[in-house]
């Protein structure tokens, strides 16, 4: 290839780099949990900062890399050089320049940083918001809606287009609430309440997971935010407020009895019954949930059976003990009861 052609191609190189980055931004880096695909104002604002800082950094990197490459080529030692290169010790003006220019660029970033910091924080209360209390447990999430009198676990139902304020705390160790498409993470600290807010613009499922190491089951402490239209959300609230947990079949009735006798109820609450344990997840709307085991397995009868039979085998570190001593019909009865919770 001749020199001219190289030059022409070199002119297109920056555009090619940008195109590649843009492509990778659209394709390779997407996913249901991606920061780069925000679905609400908080995540959108944070992505704005990520992007603007990224471009500033890329520019600086290109300058540094270009100077380095040019220096390496132009000033490489050549055979036969006997004289010393000029022994330059410094240059005050240059040194001043590369102190001041980065400082100015950083000042630019600093403004956005401070602005967004204050905008993201929900404390004490964001006006017109709905408050949800979030409590982290090893290894699941408890959600309480104080204004609605509703309690649920692992799947957070919210209406779209409304500001949701979360009051985060922990029952045991540190956890971190992270649903990347809606907002950056905030830790759940025992003895402390942290406030954040977010808003989902469109209905849909938004995935996230615990982002502060919390023990053996940390990787399996996942969560889903189910953003619903206001009408659907009201319907869900109505269901939750009048739970229907009266078993209809004989098998389910046997399961309900077992639930009380073998110890399930010491940990789990089921709305509309006398079962009011407060250690494990609330099971009131279990049939309405998409997943079990803090969103690790789909909510199918088979998975539910295996889970009741031997939870630790499915999710390392889970605090629910194994009930493998139960006979298959007993487990089936329990599953039938759980399948009747609406």
């Amino acid at each position: 290839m001749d020199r001219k052609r190289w030059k022409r191609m070199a002119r297109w190189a920056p555009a090619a780099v940008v195109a590649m980055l843009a492509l990778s931004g659209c394709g390779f880096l997407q996913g249901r949990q991606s920061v780069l695909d925000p679905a609400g104002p908080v995540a959108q604002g944070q992505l704005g900062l990520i992007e603007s800082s990224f471009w500033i950094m890329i520019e600086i990197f290109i300058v540094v890399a270009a100077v380095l490459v040019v220096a390496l080529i132009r000033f490489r030692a050549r055979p036969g050089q006997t004289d010393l290169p000029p022994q330059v010790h410094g240059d005050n003006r240059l040194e001043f320049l590369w102190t001041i220019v980065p400082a100015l660029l950083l000042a630019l970033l600093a403004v956005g940083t401070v602005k967004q910091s204050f905008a993201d924080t929900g404390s004490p209360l964001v006006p017109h918001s709905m408050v949800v209390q979030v409590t982290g447990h090893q290894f699941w999430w408890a959600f309480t809606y104080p204004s609605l009198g509703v309690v649920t676990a692992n799947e957070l139902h919210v209406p779209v287009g409304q500001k949701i304020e979360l009051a985060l705390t922990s029952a045991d160790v540190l956890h971190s609430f992270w649903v990347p498409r809606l907002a950056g993470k905030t830790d759940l600290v025992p003895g402390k309440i942290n406030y954040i807010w977010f808003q989902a613009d469109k209905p849909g499922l938004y995935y996230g997971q615990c982002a502060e190491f919390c023990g053996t089951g940390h990787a399996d402490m996942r969560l889903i935010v189910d953003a619903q239209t206001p009408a659907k959300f009201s319907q869900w609230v109505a269901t939750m407020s009048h739970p229907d947990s009266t078993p209809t079949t004989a098998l389910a009735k046997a399961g309900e009895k077992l639930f009380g006798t073998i110890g399930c109820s010491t940990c789990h609450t089921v709305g509309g019954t006398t079962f009011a344990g407060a250690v494990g997840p609330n099971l009131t709307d279990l049939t309405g949930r998409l997943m079990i085991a803090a969103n690790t397995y789909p909510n199918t009868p088979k998975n539910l059976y295996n889970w009741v039979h031997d939870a630790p085998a499915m999710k390392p570190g889970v605090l629910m003990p194994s009930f493998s001593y139960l006979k298959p019909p007993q487990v089936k009865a329990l599953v039938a009861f759980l399948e009747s919770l609406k």
Partner: protein
Amino acid sequence: MAATTERIPHVIPRSDAYHENKLLSWLSVVDHKRIAQLYLMAGLLFFLTGGIEAFIMRLQLAHPNGHVVSAVLFNQLFTMHGTTMIFLAIMPMLIGFVNAVLPLQIGARDVAYPRLNALSFWLFLAGGLLLNSSWFLGGAPNAGWFNYVPISNPPYSPGLGVDFYDIGLQIAGIGTLMTGINFLVTLVNLRAPGMRLMRLPMFAWTVLVTMVLILFAFPPLTVTLFLQTFERLFGAQFFSVAAGGNPLLWSNMFWIFGHPEVYILILPAFGIISEVVPVFSRKPLFGYTSMVLATLAIGFLSFMVWVHHMFTLGYGPFVNSIFALTSMMIAIPTGVKVFNWLATMWGGQIRFTTSMLWAIGFLFCFVLGGMSGVMLAIAPADLQYNNSYFVVAHFHYVLIGGTLFALFAGIYYWFPKMTGRMLSERLGKWNFWLTLIGFNITFFPMHFLGLMGMPRRIYTYAPGNGFTFWNEVSTFGVFILAAGILFFLVNLVTSLQRGEKAANDPWDARSLEWSISSPAPPYNFAKIPLVRGADPFWLEKMHGNGHMLPAPGQEHHHGPPNTVHMPRPTMIPLIIAVALLILGYGFIYHALVVEIVGFMVLAVGLHRSMFTPDPGEYVPIEEEPAEEVGADG
């Protein structure tokens, strides 16, 4: 040493047993150059251990729902990988270089406290062995390298793993603190005549600031490790919410140590690069004064930024903004350094030795790590990055692309002075290119994974999240990276045995260590050199006769002719370290008898250390072989 000579009898028998028996000579070592070799070898062994741990983790994460290791084992692996690499591999290897080079660079015959120096090493080794023995004694610690409470406290970590962490790091940490004091005193008191502060080689400057950081950063670690030891062993309640304690006390104390620690790991690396780049560009370091000021600024700011590790802990926008701004400010002096290195190369005659290649690789990768560092400093954006693979990518770019690459630049550069042999340049280039390529393939995709929402410290991930492809790429890169490291090991072993004999000044270098023979004799300088300017050896080569002039009025020699008075080998430091090792196990296992034995050995060691004067010994001066001046390699 010179000052105490007058009170010492004329004839002191040499401690022959310690010199003739090879094993004993290592166990009783006080020579900074041999201690350096111990640090580097032990650090390398721990580095390989940590590398194997990382390798297993990458195998586990290559596919979603992987089954290579269990969740429990994975959590131990990442905890030990981080702890090992930071405390037992990178830091000791840096301290190894400091030991090997610093006294030579300032024209000293040893460090200020040679016995203490040996104690520092043995304590590091004792702490490291104790910590790693947990693998065989019921399981390694599993609460992450920063060991946050409450997860590391008894109800949530009931095993002994965290006790091994607390006590192992405590023992190693005491050693590091002593290193800090030792080299500070050495730098202040043992500089050769004429070696004014503003003539110190840049490596020595970075060591000076690093040792100040150690002095102020390690005590918070010591204290917080003690708090947890008391909590775990004796039921204290410093961190328990129920008892009025605060778990965030640990987070803050740890990062008040932990952030300066990051700069303890990178400043000496900056120093190495500042030595290598000028020599292989055949130019003096550009902007010496601004480099010194930048080093001081980084050291100062490193204590002002610790909350940026905890932007998600909910300290509010005000606190987060302040720490975001101070964190960004660190980029300014760091940028000054990068631009000064570039300006040093500009207009030079760049020789692409393996050492220089590593320095160039350092510049590329460290700048990338610095850029992602600035992005992380932006507090609201950090809420997305924090604890994700983006952070994992960032600190591996800084610690591997930065510190480890600089360590490689340093080993290829100083190996001749340390061993008297050259490392193979051919194997070195394989070592460099494979490591560089493997490193980038392994760690660059982690930026993507973080942005795609992958948190760190997860033993597995769901197939539906789209993490699979980049995880596969990353694991593929590890194999190339490992091959690169393997080439280094081969190079090390073969060059130690049959490497080309090194000239005294193989690189046509600038600082004092190249004015003496390779390897350096036990006493370093037969005559303390006179420093007549910055880059003293270069100065003599350009404007003098190519040899350092002896400093006048330095020798009050009362010993036999042609000898140098040097510290005497001793087993006392080893005894003290062994005592602390025994005590450590005693406390972990609540074994009173073991504790008593440990205390008794410690008492003997301390007593001997305090009440046995060191008469030193006279080391004969070797004949210096006549050599061509300024022989260029």
